[in-house]
């Protein structure tokens, strides 16, 4: 029997205002080489100055991932030449990273596995080099933007676990507001490593996999790679220690470089930056930056609001949705109804219109009002859905909408009685049939009245009145 060992190296771009060692704007998509200055362009004589926001966000992540926080985070120079790296060394951390020995729980296949975090360190990102024909073009807008690297121990066994870890991690960093976690656009990047060995024999020969642009590819690449390595071992072969690339068109991994990198980065402490020593005030700030994380929130939603697991999963997926939901519930709406409306009706409209809940015309107050109109019997379910559509279309309060449109439920007994009489008169045959003991046409009669009132009649009252008049 074989055992596989999977570890991940995750990079996230921190959502800071400015770059990690200079005042340039940290933003993507701008004209090439516009968010640059002598510092991030590596001009002679400039010095890095550590961005307080970047180090704070880094410690927030370390804290959220249960790391021991270093009392002294040391920056080091990692030396190698690459045209997109202005200084030809990267300021990173090596001997004393800011966080160590953390963990993240991964629930898969009914089991929860605790995956250890080896370390978390802060570094600067490089620029981008694009080869265009016989030219190489460089854009340094990204150079010097803050990058946080999270390295796990090889504690996972299946590609699925890696996928779940990434999804949970992504949710966590989005909750913390430190990164938008967009793997397609590269604000979150992941390299995976995997080795296979006979059970009980410890780690095998490690293969690293790059070019993984989604958590699904991470899963697919790892499972492919585990299969490939098992096959080699089955045949008595040896796995080559190498770096492989995921080919997303062919769904296979391919050799990138076999030569076990003889890269000597010649790390040494960055003399331009003193070690960062977090004080009590800083740590208190870090604590304030922590929010209730998705797993805890999921548990609380099930317990406190009585929603089912699927609804809880949906609600906590985005922090904005969960916050919205709690606001609606706090305004007195039935938690079950609110969950169901968000999960189905609201989501349907958002998907159709391809928009986010945040910034849409539907505020928590409006949804709460809608649910209160519904539960108070002022409108019924079908109208409520129309009202929801109208809120999106017209950006108005539900109360105002039903008043303007005259959608308020008809529950005046005398008014309804008159309608019932008219309906019975117009449908004498159906009325006779009911009287004769056939209950089926009753629904037809109710439907006629609903149609006549564009759905506004209170259906129970209509039914009662019909029964009364027909003497059944």
């Amino acid at each position, binding site marked *: 029997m074989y055992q596989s060992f999977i570890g991940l190296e995750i990079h996230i771009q921190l959502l800071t205002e400015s770059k990690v060692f200079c005042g340039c704007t940290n933003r993507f998509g701008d004209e090439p080489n516009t968010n640059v200055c*002598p510092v991030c*362009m590596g*001009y002679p004589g400039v010095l890095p*100055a550590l961005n307080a926001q970047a180090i704070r966000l880094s410690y927030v992540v370390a804290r959220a991932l249960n790391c021991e926080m270093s009392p002294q985070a040391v920056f080091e120079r990692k030396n190698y*030449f690459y*045209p997109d790296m*202005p200084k030809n*060394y990267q300021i990173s951390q090596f001997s004393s990273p800011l966080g160590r020995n953390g963990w993240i729980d991964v629930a898969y296949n009914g089991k929860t596995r605790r995956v250890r975090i080896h370390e978390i360190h802060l570094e600067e990102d490089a620029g981008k080099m694009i080869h265009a024909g016989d030219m190489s073009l460089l854009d340094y807008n990204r150079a010097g933007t803050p990058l946080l690297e999270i390295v796990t121990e090889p504690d996972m066994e299946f590609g699925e676990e890696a996928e779940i870890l990434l999804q949970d991690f992504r949710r966590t960093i989005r909750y913390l507001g430190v990164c938008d976690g967009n793997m397609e656009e590269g604000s979150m990047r992941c390299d995976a490593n995997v080795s296979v060995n006979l059970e009980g024999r410890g780690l095998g020969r490690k293969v690293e996999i790059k070019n993984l642009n989604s958590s699904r590819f991470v899963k697919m690449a790892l499972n492919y790679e585990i299969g490939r390595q098992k096959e080699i071992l089955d045949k008595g072969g040896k796995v080559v220690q190498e770096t492989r690339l995921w080919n997303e068109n062919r769904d296979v991994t391919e050799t990138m470089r076999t030569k076990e990198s003889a890269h000597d980065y010649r790390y040494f402490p960055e003399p*331009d*930056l003193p070690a960062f020593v977090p004080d009590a005030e800083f740590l208190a700030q870090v604590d304030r930056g922590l929010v209730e994380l998705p797993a805890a929130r999921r548990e609380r939603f099930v317990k406190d609001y009585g929603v089912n697991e699927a609804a809880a999963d949906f609600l906590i997926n985005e922090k904005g949705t969960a916050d919205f939901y709690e606001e609606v519930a706090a305004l007195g709406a039935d938690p079950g109804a609110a969950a169901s409306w968000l999960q189905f009706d609201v989501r349907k409209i958002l998907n159709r219109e391809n928009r986010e809940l945040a910034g849409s015309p539907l505020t928590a107050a409006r949804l709460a009002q809608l649910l209160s109109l519904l539960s108070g019997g002022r409108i019924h379910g079908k109208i409520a859905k129309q009202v929801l559509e109208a809120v999106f279309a017209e950006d108005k309060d539900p109360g105002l909408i039903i008043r303007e449109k005259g959608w308020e439920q008809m529950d005046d007994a005398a008014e309804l009685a008159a309608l019932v009489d008219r309906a019975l008169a117009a449908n004498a045959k159906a009325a006779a049939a009911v009287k004769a003991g056939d209950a089926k046409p009753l629904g037809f009669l109710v439907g006629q009245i609903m149609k006549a009132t564009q759905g506004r009649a209170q259906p129970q009252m209509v039914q009662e009145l019909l029964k009364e008049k027909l003497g059944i």
Partner: protein
Amino acid sequence: MESPFARWRVLSDAAARKKYEAYVKEADANIGAFLEFDAGRPEGRPGGCLEGVPFAVKDIIAVKGFHLTCGSKILQNLVSPYTATAVEKLAAEGGIVVGKTNMDEFGMGSSTDNSALGKTNNPWDGRRVSGGSSGGSAAAVAAGMVPFALGSDTGGSVRQPAAFCGVYGLKPTYGAVSRYGLVAYASSLDVVGVCACSVGIARDVFELMRGQDEKDQSSLDPGPDAPGPDAKVIGVLGGDLGLDPAVERAYRAAIGFYKSKGFELKEITLAMAEYYVPVYYTIATAEASANLARYTGIRYGYRPACAENPEELTRRARSEGFGDEVKLRILLGTYVLRSGFQDQYYQRAQRLRQAIRADFDNAFTRADVILTPVFPTQAFLRGQGGLDQFQQKLADRFTTAANLAGLPAFSFPAAVEDGLPVGMQFLAPAFGEARLFEVVRLYEENFPRPLPPRYKPEWS
């Protein structure tokens, strides 16, 4: 009291400026202190204490609009897009940068002959070197072209040329002056220093430049326990120091002077002295190997005419752009940082550096300041009779200590022997610059700065 700059407001009106420019042009034709000179730049803030006062800046310190060559072919075409903090502070007081001075390439050398862009002759004897690496700054001050010039001191690069040219040379406490805008040679050793024509000017310039700077997170203000200005006990070195006779005589004379003024002279032993030079060259080259990695011709600087790919561009720019001494130090630094060898070299040097600091902490419990020679020789000749590159490195044994320990040191013209100045230096505990100025001011009062015979403009 009259400002020490009063005579130096040579740029305050057009007539004075013309006279000044003519003098510099003539003097520098023989000396070659400046790589770039332009006294016609917009004046600094009026009303400041440096109003109308010219000063020069070593070409390793950034001044917007001036070149920033570092004495290297690789940066020969670079015009700085920004200004160093130290220079900005002086400009804010009205000081006017008139030019950039010659230097050993990237600060690596003791003669300024390692400049790729020109030679700087010693104002006392044109056959001799001006010292280095801030040779242009020291020569410009010595020849009366400026009252002061900024330099950088990584292992003696302000003090040694100051000694060779007969001017005052201050190496401040590490971190006392912002390094922002000082091109890094060895970041943990580099400081912005001053060559000056008087103690008062050195002191005033330092006071204007000092202070914590948010752009340099290694900079700091003195703490409440900074040493006071008074010195009573002077530590001196015993035994055979391996000095040239002229330097030995000057050292003994300086000791005698202070004894006659009532100081207590105490012989001290610096047990770590034999390690200064090897530790210095290990740490300095290690840091340099990283600091100089950015020069590839891709974003600025020398670019070869053609290259097949970025790697070749980088390789050729560096092969063609750097001089031999710079290449040697990059190779040495790369060597000492190799993984598996760090413990033997770089880490070991760091441990020894700690011991050197401790050695000085200990010494300063017994003495208030320490008096030592700056260099074992006077300004040496070029070629035959001079010092080769290796001998020059060994001769850094008196200057590198202050850099390794982060201490302030101040060199001063102590004597003229055989027609050439001899420099001595005082070292003080960290942030003890005031003490250095006091103790050297006493010497200056008795022995004013000697002027090189050929260069005595009216304002100097």
